[in-house]
């Protein structure tokens, strides 16, 4: 699978040759060669190598469309006849498919190619360095690495290619029970010294967890949400929050911004920032994404994400959104608070390193609940005093990122989505930390 670009182009050309007059074939390739290594208690738990390739083939004839996603071998000899047979099967079934009034796909010829190469370490090096670094500690973590290939082709002359190589190691150093420091190291080139530096920082934080943990009573607390915590909140807002379909079917969690003019703080500007994200610049029907789409502008709801299907349904031009109309490169603009001054600005309150398991307790009100997790601390006089026992929050996004938002940090973090459901994700969030006047804890 090392010459995947050539493979993609040859298969695309082969699919071109299969289309009969009046037919359009659009196709998408998704392939990866991944190494996955799990660690627990500073030892290896599971190590897996995965090589996989899948094509999604859509046969379109007039107003009818039929899609099939199939795994393939990833080589021309096997895949050309297999995909040829698949196109034949789709053709045989197409007549029985209902007309699709919302069918829309890219019809203008276009080409693009993006490649981010990397110098990835051998798994043996990673295992060596992690086990040495974790010696005497309780380290649990997950390493994923390797190339990801995405391609889009259509018989109308569209070819888009996106190849990314990367590694991502996320790990926790545990003090006891649920008290841990979570750290990550991701990029294109594994540098032993950089890894050691992050381990050193994690070990320093681990020492803070040795203090007697503090139990908080339910109530409202001044709080600082670190970028990893804010990423979770933004993830919930992205779940059916920004799409046109969710707006028009009144199911958006941000329905009050749409229908009642509710606003977030003027400090909040949220963008789908494809230009600075990791995700590909094209989507499943071949439309190229604009570099940026403003979703919330200085607190006011702005443009929705519009998939091709919604575009047809609601008569609004698509902006290259995926079928679920969820952001893939979400970007919350930074503020003016220097990160180094965050604890000082917090004064007395809680530092929330991570949030966990968020859900809506009232979707129409964008009221969210979730738990604090990992390194979260009680802070007094701008200094960390004690780790917190986990607490549940329950509050609306309009208060958290609205009236109660005091400041955002100037510095921001790119938080890559570490999900590997079926295949490795290329979604990311870029966000600052947030200083809140109040954050409501309930249990």
């Amino acid at each position, binding site marked *: 699978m090392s010459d995947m670009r050539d493979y993609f182009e040859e298969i695309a050309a082969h699919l071109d040759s299969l289309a009969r007059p009046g037919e359009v074939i659009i196709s998408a390739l998704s392939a990866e060669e991944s190494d996955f290594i799990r660690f627990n208690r500073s030892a290896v738990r599971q*190590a897996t190598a995965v090589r996989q390739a899948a094509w999604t083939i859509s046969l379109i004839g007039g107003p009818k469309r039929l899609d099939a996603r199939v*795994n393939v071998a990833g080589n021309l000899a096997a895949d050309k006849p297999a995909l040829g047979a698949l196109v034949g099967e789709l053709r045989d079934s197409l007549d029985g498919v209902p007309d699709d009034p919302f069918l829309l796909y890219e019809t203008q010829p276009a080409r693009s190619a993006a490649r981010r190469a990397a110098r990835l370490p051998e798994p043996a090096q990673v295992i060596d360095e992690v086990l040495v670094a974790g010696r005497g500690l309780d380290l649990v973590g997950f390493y994923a690495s390797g190339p990801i290939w995405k391609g889009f082709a259509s018989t109308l002359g569209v070819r888009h290619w996106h190849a990314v190589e990367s590694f991502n190691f996320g790990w926790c150093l545990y003090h006891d029970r649920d008290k841990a420091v979570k750290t990550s190291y991701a990029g294109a080139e594994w540098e032993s010294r950089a890894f050691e530096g992050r381990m050193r920082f994690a070990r320093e934080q681990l020492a803070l967890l040795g203090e007697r943990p503090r139990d908080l009573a339910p109530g409202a607390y001044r709080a600082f949400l670190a970028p990893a915590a804010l990423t979770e909140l933004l993830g919930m807002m992205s779940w059916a929050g920004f799409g046109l379909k969710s707006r028009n079917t009144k199911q958006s969690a941000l329905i009050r911004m749409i229908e009642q003019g509710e606003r977030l703080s003027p400090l909040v500007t949220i963008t789908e920032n494809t230009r600075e994200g990791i995700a590909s610049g094209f989507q499943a029907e071949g439309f190229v994404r604009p570099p940026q789409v403003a979703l919330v502008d200085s607190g006011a709801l702005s443009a929705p994400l519009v998939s091709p299907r919604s575009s047809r349904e609601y008569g609004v031009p698509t902006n290259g959104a995926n079928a679920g109309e969820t952001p893939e490169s979400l970007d919350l603009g930074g503020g003016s608070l220097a990160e180094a001054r965050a604890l000082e600005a917090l004064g007395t309150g809680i530092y929330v390193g991570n949030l966990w398991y968020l859900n809506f307790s009232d979707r129409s009100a964008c009221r969210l609940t979730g738990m604090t997790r990992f390194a979260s601390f009680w802070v007094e006089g701008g200094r960390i005093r004690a780790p917190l026992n986990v607490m549940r929050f329950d509050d609306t996004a309009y208060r958290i990122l609205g009236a109660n938002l005091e400041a955002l940090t100037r510095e921001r973090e790119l938080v890559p989505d570490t999900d590997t459901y079926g295949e490795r994700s290329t979604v990311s969030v870029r966000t600052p930390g947030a200083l809140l006047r109040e954050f409501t804890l309930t249990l």
Partner: protein
Amino acid sequence: MLDSLRREFRSLAPAVDFCALRFVEESSEYLAVRQDVPEPPRLQVNRGAMVTVIDKGGLGYGATSDLSRAGLAQAMDRARAYASLTAGRSVMDYGAVEMPRPHGEYRSPVARDAASLSRKEKYELLTSEAAQCRIDERIVDWEANLWTTASKQAYFTADGGDVRQEFHFVVPNLSATAYAKGESQTRTHAGRYNGFCRQGGLEILDAFGLTGAGRTVAEGALELLAAPNCPGGTMDVLLLPDQMMLQIHESIGHPLELDRILGDERNFAGTSFVTLDMFGKYRYGSELLNVTHDPTRPEQYASYGWDDDGLAAQKLFLIRDGILERPLGGAISQKRAGIAGVANTRACAWNRAPIDRMANLNVEPGGSSMDELIASIDHGVMMSTNVSWSIDDSRNKFQFGCEWGRMIRGGKLAEVVKNPNYRGISATFWRSLSGVGDASTFQVMGTPFCGKGEPSQVIRVGHASPACRFSNVDVFGGAA
């Protein structure tokens, strides 16, 4: 095809302590009709194989979608390389695990094959029911869908193990959303996240009650739109099976997973408030609580003959009369922990290594009829159909919400309420179990979407339960 795959595998298998091949081919079809418009069918064939190698105490997995001899050989090489790399540096000596060498076949019971209706006929069925949702201009969105999957699986060990399993899954769903004055309410038939999911054929549509469900969900959404918020306070709750499934899943299932207890999941899914020393003596719930792990119930969503490490399935009690007996842990976890578990090492697909997963995790029926359960509550709320779930990483502090609630006063059903939510702590919540419904209140549910593991895995899980009453629960409603 499977016989030739077995031959190819065995001819390639290296001289190691243990080697196995797991093949999975899942073919699925998803049909949906939204707002009376049929959406294009989505077909998928997810096919590939994973090789497991255990050698000199190390363990490695290699997965590939290339099922040629060369592809299998490459997967085997990578699995072997990982076994070699991890030998002596793993959480345990994997060579000490007695890996099963199973033989046999399993097949879901199917009365009406999914192919007995054409795609056109399935669309007509969905279109007809979706159209029934259009009863009021406040119904702003509605959808009917049907997801069918056939899964062929084989598990071969180099030294003779040979298991073939064939599963058939049917997952129907219906939903309607009503909107007025800045508020939306959605009512579904058995859950927004496919709570009605079973093994079998199209006879499942009858059990689901597809006919007439369109109008029912639309009326339900309008009913919620007009309803007051659920009041807050401490009161009894009566949870119907389509919420009990979530309660079981989150606050019994996940905390009892042995790999969580052993710490494997602490970087992602979390740990557990349950510790190894609790088994055999810990009071998990009131004496009314009886929980079984039962992959042998034929129609339930996560039934099988053998798990993905080849351990034979059987029904076993995890909690009996409220006392914790055994965890959810398969062959490898049992060896690590030195404790008996169940056959539940499972992978979501060919490209993921198996881990401890709940399969069918059920609360056994008790002795109270629904009328008796209601009559026993002086002040409380009946809740149905999960819509929201959140729990801490030790699976202890939880907050769950339902689509629909109905107040109970003086032992009688009263008004419908919207946005019913409740909070609790797993370690104490089950001890407040004060009534367990009989078989007439029992329903077989499940979810296609249980997430866990690194790399991430979403797997099928079944939960069957009677209606259950809990006393003195912290209840609250939606935002003002």
